[in-house]
């Protein structure tokens, strides 16, 4: 069992050497261990066969006049090339290039011959990498070094499994993106020419009052310090108090988040339930009246601005027909219907179009012909082979559009007077209330990143193409 692990670690260690990023991370992760090992390695290393042989080979080759031969060859080639392309080139330039090229080739040749000779004699080149590699093969060493090298072993272990490697890399990427979003949004608000202090305190505020306001909210600190505290605030859910009303920003965002997410989730559900059957029906009978009608409605759905659709719904269903309440109230389940439909319309239209085109593409794949050739009925072909595969790009699109939907929530929430995160950001932007806007935008971006992360990881398990690609790389 132990040897199984150690050979796995060895393999992972060898592969990780190829990428400079991973090599750096490995040495960093196992820094104490590597320090000790390097000292031992240098002390133990007495054997200098390699260097001696290399010097000998170089001498031999020089004597043979190989470098001169290479030089002449390259100079000739370069001159002919310049002649052919009718380029103006001085003899010095050609000479210099030829020298570079021949020196490079000479070195390569020497190393190659040395390696060949040593391999014939059964001697291997000693290197620090080889030393650590051989140590990793010994279970006893692993047990001894488990504590100081734990992080490095964990890294190697994560790397050894393609799934784990993919998930970790994707997670790290998301973290960087989120930090980037924080920096970007903060910087945009930081370079704003507006002065929140004079906006809030009014025209008549004295300089002392403004200075005091800036001190309370930390606005007099230098850029890096403010940025650091903003990022720390996002990570620890402590964004301080807002400029107006001195409410706790994090807790007011936490209060407003659920309703936005609820409406968004219901919209996605509605979109999936309506759009996927519509897309399938359309793709099964392409270019018929049914298909054209569905696609026309979908295109209109894509072209309607959310807020106008909301206003027309209010006009029709609330004012004229008096069926549904015009504004949202938390206790009334009926009042959530219109916001959900309005927010979900664009998504429904996109998914239906995507599902149709994706299914139409798959119908022409070779494996569908195979399925027909082996005598499957039309519905078996559709449900067993087509729909599942067609859903793969559709789910990605849902993940990507989910972000746009959370952004569009600001408009819909304003129309239906919903106290969600979107209308919170819009209300706060007139001041501009930096912690509130920053918190709102960044937490929405985090939610979107998490949803997309989740979808990507799901794919790693579900899509056989991605799975095999991961194993190959």
């Amino acid at each position, binding site marked *: 069992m132990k040897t199984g692990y150690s050979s796995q670690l060895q393999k992972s260690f060898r592969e990780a050497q190829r990428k400079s990023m991973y090599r750096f991370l490995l040495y960093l992760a196992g820094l104490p261990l590597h320090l000790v090992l390097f000292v031992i390695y240098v002390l133990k290393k007495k054997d200098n066969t390699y260097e001696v042989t290399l010097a000998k080979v170089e001498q031999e080759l020089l004597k043979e006049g190989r470098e001169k031969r290479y030089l002449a060859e390259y100079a000739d080639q370069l001159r002919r090339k310049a002649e052919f392309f009718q380029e103006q080139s001085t003899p010095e330039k050609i000479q210099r290039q030829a020298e570079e090229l021949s020196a490079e080739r000479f070195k390569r040749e020497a190393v190659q011959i040395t390696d060949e000779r040593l391999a014939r004699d059964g001697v291997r080149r000693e290197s620090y990498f080889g030393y650590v590699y051989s140590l990793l093969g010994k279970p006893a060493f692993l047990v001894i070094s488990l504590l100081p090298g734990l992080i490095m072993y964990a890294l190697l272990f994560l790397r050894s499994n393609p799934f784990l490697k993919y998930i970790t890399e994707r997670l790290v990427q998301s973290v960087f993106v989120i930090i980037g979003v924080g920096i970007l949004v903060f910087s945009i608000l930081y370079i704003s020419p507006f002065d929140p202090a004079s906006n809030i305190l009014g025209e008549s505020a004295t300089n002392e009052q403004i200075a005091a306001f800036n001190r309370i909210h930390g606005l007099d600190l230098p850029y890096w310090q403010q940025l650091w505290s903003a990022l720390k605030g996002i990570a620890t859910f402590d964004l301080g108090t807002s400029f107006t009303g001195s409410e706790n920003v994090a807790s007011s965002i936490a209060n407003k988040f659920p309703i936005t997410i609820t409406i968004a989730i219901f919209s996605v559900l509605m979109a999936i339930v309506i759009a996927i059957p519509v897309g399938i029906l359309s793709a099964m009978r392409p270019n018929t009246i049914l298909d054209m009608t569905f696609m026309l409605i979908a295109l209109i759905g*894509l072209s309607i601005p959310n807020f106008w659709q909301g206003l027309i719904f209010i006009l029709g269903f609330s004012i004229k027909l008096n069926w549904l309440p015009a504004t949202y109230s938390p206790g009334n389940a009926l009042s959530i219907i219109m916001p959900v439909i309005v927010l979900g319309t664009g998504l429904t239209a996109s998914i239906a179009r995507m599902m149709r085109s994706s299914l139409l593409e798959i119908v022409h794949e070779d494996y569908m012909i195979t399925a027909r050739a082996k005598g499957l009925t039309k519905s078996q072909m559709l449900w067993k082979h087509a729909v599942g595969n067609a859903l793969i790009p559709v789910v990605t699109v849902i993940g990507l559009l989910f972000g746009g939907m959370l952004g569009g929530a600001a408009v819909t929430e304003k129309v239906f007077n919903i106290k969600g995160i979107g209308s919170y950001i819009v209300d*706060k932007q007139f001041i501009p209330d930096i912690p509130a806007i920053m918190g709102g935008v960044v937490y929405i971006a985090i939610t979107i990143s998490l949803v997309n992360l989740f979808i990507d990881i799901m794919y790693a398990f579900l899509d056989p193409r991605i799975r095999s690609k991961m194993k190959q790389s």
Partner: protein
Amino acid sequence: MKENRINRQAVILSKEYHQANFTWILTLLISLLFLMNSFSFKTGEVKPYVFALFGAYLATALLQLFIAWRIKRDLLLSGDIRKGTRRLGYIQLVSLATGNVFTASFSLHLLNKRKTPEYTFAVYTVLTQLFVIAISALNMFKPYVTDTFPMAMLLLLLVLVFQVVVLAIVAKTIREDNYPSSVGILALLTALTAITGNLFALLLGGSLLLKSRSTDESRIAKWNTMWEKITRNTMAVFGMFFIILMLTISVVSRFTFDYEVAVENDYGNILQSPSLVYPFGTDNFGRDVFSRIIFGARISLLVGFAATLIPAVIGGFLGGIAGYYSNRTDNWIMRLLDVLYAIPGILLAIAIIAAFGANTVNLIIALSLGSIPTYARTMRANVLMVSNYDFVDSARALGASDFSIIFRQIVPNSLAPMIVKATLTIGGAVIATSSLSYLGLGVEPHIPEWGNILRVGSTYLESHSYLAIFPGLAIILLVLSFNFLGDGLRDALDPRLD
């Protein structure tokens, strides 16, 4: 029996028959829309004007149905459309008086048997000009017009007459293989009339020039096939028509519409219902909503095009570099753009506008920044594909520099998906502009912009709903047009569909 089958095939392949069916269905739907609006459910009274429109459209739809039936019969009997049936187009052309662009363009296409791209361009040039004149002429019902109105109308009418003559010449003389070189002057003059914003005239003039001057057969064939594919998609052409109509209106409105009526308060005429003087009524400051919507088209088109062009250029450049150069450059650029991509466009725009204030320039910058990553991704994917082609290798073998390979080989060959993407996202930019204006974060509130008009309208939803309905319809029509055109371009330019 065999004869019959061939004729059936002719029915299926006939472009006219499909268009005829499509046109009567659409006209019938529009007439039903008028019928629903001609009756007021609250008071129970019938609006005579709207009801008359319903009658006219219904009659047009029935005539169109008859034409469709005649076409089918002709095709089944003889495999071709007879002259008598084609002549029905003259009668159907009368429907132009009701503003039905669908039947008008259909009948003009039915009248001419040979369909060259030039004929299509000429038809739409004339239609656009006619509609612009008709819309501008509505100003005559107002108590006063701007000083430049009579002169501008006269010029527009002269241009119309000239364009009708060109249409007749194109219909009579232009054949698939015959482009007399004497057309040159005519083509130049036609292209010149495009300064009104009527880009169809530019296309017509350019196309005629290309064919009368160029001896390169393959270039002409390419041009013809491309436009044939685009014009096969009826909705794409109508989308293009509406976009160019809006463009022409925004250019011409400077001279034919009175800006004062759209922005100056007139407390004597507050919240008037739609009438001939005020086709879409007036708002709470007595401003004419129709003029406001006309002037709003300018802003929407400007912001839409600017917020598409800027990110397309920047994103295209970044994506091109990322796709062409090594892994490391690619990784750096794309990871940095991922940060932008993670923030929804509207939220990023709100944050930028919060920081720098609400005005048109900031709006354009805010919307542009958010859509850079999508363009970069599209361009990168194209470049990755194109740079594997043999002609790139041969350019490299010939010693071309990276710069020249990128801009002379790769970029021209990966433009098509970018154009499609841009067309499809202009609509999104138009929606985003009006959404932000509706929230009070877009264009300055005193400027007539569709979102601003709607913002006012939304407060009078209960009593004067037309204030919110008309600007919304304008937005939908423009966005829908861009989407139709984008779909048409995608189908025409996608090599996979060949």
